[in-house]
C-alpha cells in the first residue's frame, strides 16, 4: 500500500511552504448506511502534527467537519535546504501515519 500521505514542500528564501493531503474517510459519525440502517461510526483524523528537524511547527486539530481526504497547507519561517519536514496524523481510532520529506 502506497503512503496515505502526500506532501509538497517548497522552499522560498527562508520560508517553507507545505501542502499536504491525507487519504482518510473522515466519517462524521452521523451518516446512516442506507442498506443496514445503522449509523456509520465516526472515523476521522484528530491531529496533524508537522515538525521541522524535530521541532513542532504546526499542530492542526481536526473535527469531523474537515473534508474527506483532508487537505492542509501552511508556511513557516527559518527553514533551510536539507531540513527534514515530517508530518504525522493520528485518528480517533488511534491509527497513525507519517511521512518525511527534505526541503530542497
Amino acid at each position, binding site marked *: 500500500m502506497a503512503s496515505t500521505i502526500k506532501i509538497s514542500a517548497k522552499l522560498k528564501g527562508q*520560508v517553507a511552504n507545505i501542502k499536504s493531503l491525507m487519504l482518510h474517510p*473522515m466519517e*462524521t459519525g*452521523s451518516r446512516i448506511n442506507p442498506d443496514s440502517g445503522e449509523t456509520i461510526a465516526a472515523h476521522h483524523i*484528530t*491531529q496533524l*502534527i508537522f515538525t521541522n528537524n524535530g521541532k*513542532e*511547527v*504546526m*499542530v*492542526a*486539530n*481536526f*473535527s*469531523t*467537519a*474537515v*473534508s*474527506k481526504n*483532508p*487537505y*492542509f*497547507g*501552511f*508556511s*513557516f*519561517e*527559518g527553514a533551510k535546504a536539507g531540513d527534514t519536514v515530517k508530518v504525522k496524523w493520528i485518528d480517533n481510532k488511534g491509527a497513525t501515519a507519517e511521512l518525511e520529506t527534505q526541503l530542497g
Partner: protein
Amino acid sequence: MQNMRRMMIKGGVALLALATLPRTLLAAAWPQKSFNSTAAGDALRELLGTDITTASDLIELKVPEIAENGAVVPVSIKTSLENVESISIVVKNNPRPMAASFEIPPGTLPDIASRIKMGETSDVMAVVKTSNGIYSTAKTVKVTIGGCGG
C-alpha cells in the same frame, strides 16, 4: 453573533489558567469538548475560554460565496495580526460548529488553508488568538442542495 459576545466569567478564569500553561502542553491535547459542542459560543468558550472576539479587518478569510459542494469547501485564512497563537475555523450552523483549530508556534506564519464540510448555509468564522486578544472575521457561505452535479 450577539449571543457570542456575552461575557462569561467562567470563561475568563479558564483563559487565565490556560495562559499560564507552557505551550507544548497546549499542543498535546485534542480539544474534544470544544469539538463536541453544539453551539458556536460553547465551542469557543471550551477552546479559548471566551466567546467574545474583536472583529478585525486584519484577518483575511477566503471562502466561496456559494459552495460548489458542501462536502468540500475551500477555506484559507491569513492575518497580519502579530504574535498569533492559534487560528480556528467555526461554522456556526454545523451540528458541531468547531471545524478545525490550528496551533501556531513562533516562526510559523499565520496563513493556513484547508477544506471543510458544511451542512447548510452558514456564517464561517475565522477566529485568531494572539497574545493580545482574540479577533475574528466572518463570511456567509451559501450551501445549496445540488441537482445533478452540472
